[in-house]
């Protein structure tokens, strides 16, 4: 029970310590330490709950199965990211500020898994969204500030939707109940359930990069420093997953909403791949892969809603665990690749290949088990077929990613940092295989023998082969004709949005100047008096 408090408490305590500049500059070395209580909570405190004293907003923290899974994986990635960041930022002038934003994001990201009531969930969710802004603008690229603004605008827009959804939830729940469990239980019955579901799906959709709202993901992960991009794409995105787990009514069949989710999910899945293959920068490719993978998760939730089965939370969580480790690991790998020097192939490309193809379901890897976990939920119908096709598509994207990593120019072989970066990278690579294997039988109760049966192996292998083949073909013949220098989709769009905003701004400003003329102001004063009198006289 103390673990839960420590999960959020320790990072915040370290944040307070950062007030002293001396401590702040040496903080990057202990960033890894901040996530250890989170890991401990996932391992030992599953099922526990902690009520904070009434003074502190009467918050309640509790940890259930899926929460523990996601918390554990996220904590692992934050620890590895912390070690990686310590090496990556050694000697960088901004490490003090980055450490502050890092700790804030970490506290939010781990805390969101254990929040059990509306207020604390919204508090921690907004903490992880907004603190990430600080990490983004520390990026190296010139337009970091602009990317940061786009990111924070969409993040706050998503939060506004969520706030509205939570308020409507709280209103339709029996008054006084603020625990998520009770509030969501009252959701299907409430008259506003459709509005609430729309808001929740859109709100978490922005966080998960669902298609119309995915624009911030590629440019953000390309801009943020590598360790930050790793933890953001791996752990921070999972806040959206836990959100859907907590806020979608489980055990209640809502076929209509289920289909909507499935459609949105698979649109994101395939759009992610189609856009990803045309990118040249490996990090942008990975970002689009995240869009695609999250699309699959949304589809899984959709199927869960159609059938109304309660097992979907655990399956999605398991799939999330694998995705956290693999995606975070690949980002660390991309960061390591140019610095790896001579033994880049053996040290980076081989494990990266295993993890990348694992995401497509390569047998015996973590991904294989993840695909198996969501198989029963997707079922054998159209959704099952689309699932398999999406695996093939992921394989295609990952092959393209591997080629792009290979094509990365070799930076000056800087021996010392390269070696320090290796250990977290390898640790995550190994964990991405061991952790799913360890959890599969224990948590999901899936029989290992069935998993290793010939039919299931083959069913996972052929999409990988097809995708890989397509990838090779595209690499040889596709050539550079379809490669896009950078994700230029977002820049013209945002420029046009700005022009509209400025136009609106000038119009409102001119309206304000006219209103602030003395005669007009006096006129509106007298008009207000007359209008009030008339409105009040009417009912008499």
């Amino acid at each position: 029970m103390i673990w839960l408090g420590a999960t959020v408490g320790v990072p915040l305590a370290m944040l307070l310590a950062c007030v002293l500049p001396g401590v702040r500059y040496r903080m990057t070395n202990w960033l890894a330490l901040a996530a250890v209580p989170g890991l401990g909570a996932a391992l030992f405190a599953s099922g526990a709950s902690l009520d904070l004293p009434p003074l502190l907003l009467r918050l309640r923290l509790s940890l259930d199965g899926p929460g523990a899974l996601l918390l554990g994986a996220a904590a692992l990635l934050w620890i590895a990211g912390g070690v990686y960041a310590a090496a990556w930022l050694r000697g960088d002038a901004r490490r003090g500020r980055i450490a502050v934003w890092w700790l804030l994001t970490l506290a939010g990201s781990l805390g969101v898994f254990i929040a059990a009531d509306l207020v604390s969930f919204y508090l921690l969710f907004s903490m992880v969204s907004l603190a990430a802004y600080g990490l983004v603008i520390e990026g190296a690229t010139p337009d970091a500030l602009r990317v940061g603004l786009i990111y924070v605008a969409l993040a706050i827009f998503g939060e506004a939707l969520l706030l509205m959804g939570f308020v409507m939830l709280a209103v339709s729940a029996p008054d006084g109940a603020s625990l998520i469990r009770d509030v969501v239980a009252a959701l299907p019955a409430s008259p506003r359930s459709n509005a609430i579901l729309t808001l929740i799906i859109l709100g978490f959709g922005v966080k998960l990069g669902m298609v119309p709202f995915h624009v911030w993901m590629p440019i953000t992960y390309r801009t943020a420093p590598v360790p930050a991009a790793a933890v953001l794409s791996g752990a921070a995105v999972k806040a959206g997953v836990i959100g859907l787990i907590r806020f979608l009514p489980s055990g209640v069949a809502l076929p209509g909403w289920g289909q909507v989710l499935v459609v949105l999910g698979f649109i994101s899945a395939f759009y992610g791949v189609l856009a990803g293959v045309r990118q040249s920068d490996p990090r942008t490719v990975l970002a689009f892969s995240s869009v695609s993978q999250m699309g699959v998760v949304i589809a899984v939730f959709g199927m869960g809603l159609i059938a109304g089965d309660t097992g979907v939370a655990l399956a999605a969580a398991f799939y999330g665990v694998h995705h956290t480790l693999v995606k975070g690991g690949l980002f660390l790998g991309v960061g390591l690749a140019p610095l790896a020097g001579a033994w880049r192939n053996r040290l980076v490309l081989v494990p990266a290949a295993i993890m990348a193809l694992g995401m497509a379901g390569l047998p015996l890897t973590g991904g294989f088990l993840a695909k198996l976990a969501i198989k029963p939920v997707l079922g054998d119908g159209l959704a099952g077929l689309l699932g398999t096709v999406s695996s093939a598509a992921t394989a295609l994207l990952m092959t393209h990613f591997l080629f792009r990593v290979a094509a990365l120019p070799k930076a000056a072989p800087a021996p010392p940092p390269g070696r320090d970066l290796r250990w977290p990278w390898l640790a995550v690579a190994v964990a991405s295989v061991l952790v799913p294997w360890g959890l599969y039988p224990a948590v999901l109760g899936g029989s290992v023998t069935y998993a290793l049966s010939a039919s299931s192996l083959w069913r996972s292998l052929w999409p990988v082969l097809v995708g890989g083949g397509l990838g090779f073909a595209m690499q040889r013949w596709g050539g550079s004709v379809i490669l896009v220098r950078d994700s230029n989709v977002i820049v013209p769009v945002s420029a046009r949005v700005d022009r509209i905003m400025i136009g609106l701004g000038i119009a409102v400003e001119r309206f304000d100047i006219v209103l602030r003329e003395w005669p007009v102001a006096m006129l509106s004063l007298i008009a207000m008096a007359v209008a009030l009198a008339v409105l009040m006289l009417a009912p008499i």
Partner: protein
Amino acid sequence: MSLALLADGALVLLVLGLAFWVNAAASGFAAVVGYVAFGLLLALAWMRLAAGDVALTEAAVGSGATGAVLVAAAMRLRAAADPPPSWPGVSRPSTPNRRSADGRDTPGHDGGGDDLAPPAPYSDSHRDVPGHDEGGKPGLSLRLAALVLSGLVTAGLAGLVLWTAGPAPSLAEAATRHLPGLGMGNAVTGVLIAYRALDTLLEKVVLLLALGGVWSLTRDRVWGGRPFPRAIPAGNGALILLARLLPPIGIVVAVYVLWVGATDPGGAFQGGAILTAMWILVMLAGLRDAPPIGSRRLRLAVAAGPAAFLAVGLAGFVLPTGFLSYPESIAKPLIIAVEAVLTLSIALILGLLVAGPAERPPDPAERLR
């Protein structure tokens, strides 16, 4: 009875005529003169409404002191009847750069006609009334709308006045019942000093703050100095005669008005206003220069009235009846004493308000530390 109504009608028509004259007069000075006449006629109207105290106050302060302030201002502004062609001190820069969203300063497009360019935000050469000439009258449509709306307000009020013709609920009886306890005859003074004493006390603080506000408009280099641009030279014979003859009479009348306020219309404020008139007359005739606003004696005298009233009020805590209550036995003398100190302070404050902020540097000896 209709004869009296006729007289009232004539007075009302005259008052309204002057009111429209004030709005419609060609020059500011003419409007002010019209306003002073309006104020005096209004004092007559108050007499018709059987409100002696108010008539006195209206005549002394409403049209007298206000008139003095406004005439002085009109004279100073009269020199500006035709505004100088170029607006000194304010250049007319082209619409400056405006920060567009993508961080770069886009050069503001300097539209041809000043009115067409979208007016820059307040911080730039902001023209209050785009499209109208410099401070000209608002357009016809605006004036029509103003006419209609103010007409509606007038109609509403007039309707109410006609609709509630009956006798209004009144506190007159309750007020008179407690007067003997205060040793008072005049109910209005009773209300001012006793029943609603908090309002009067806060009003004195308002007066002090207004004086502070007027003094805050002094330029820093002449702080502590004396009002009026230069010491007014001794005037011509007639003014000096008046300034020597009238003040003694004025002071006697003021004291009388203060004293009689306890039983008949009069009181601290009206007496104070008469004293102010005498003081201004003496200053205008050049017999005595305006006091430096930095002198400690003046500050103490100005604050004496409110301080006395406050002290008596706080002393009320000793009594069971609490704050701002007067002991039964010495009610009348105490009230008259407080009113006397108040009269002095009010006379000073009103005079200083009419004189305005300091405009001449102080001589260093008198500077307040």
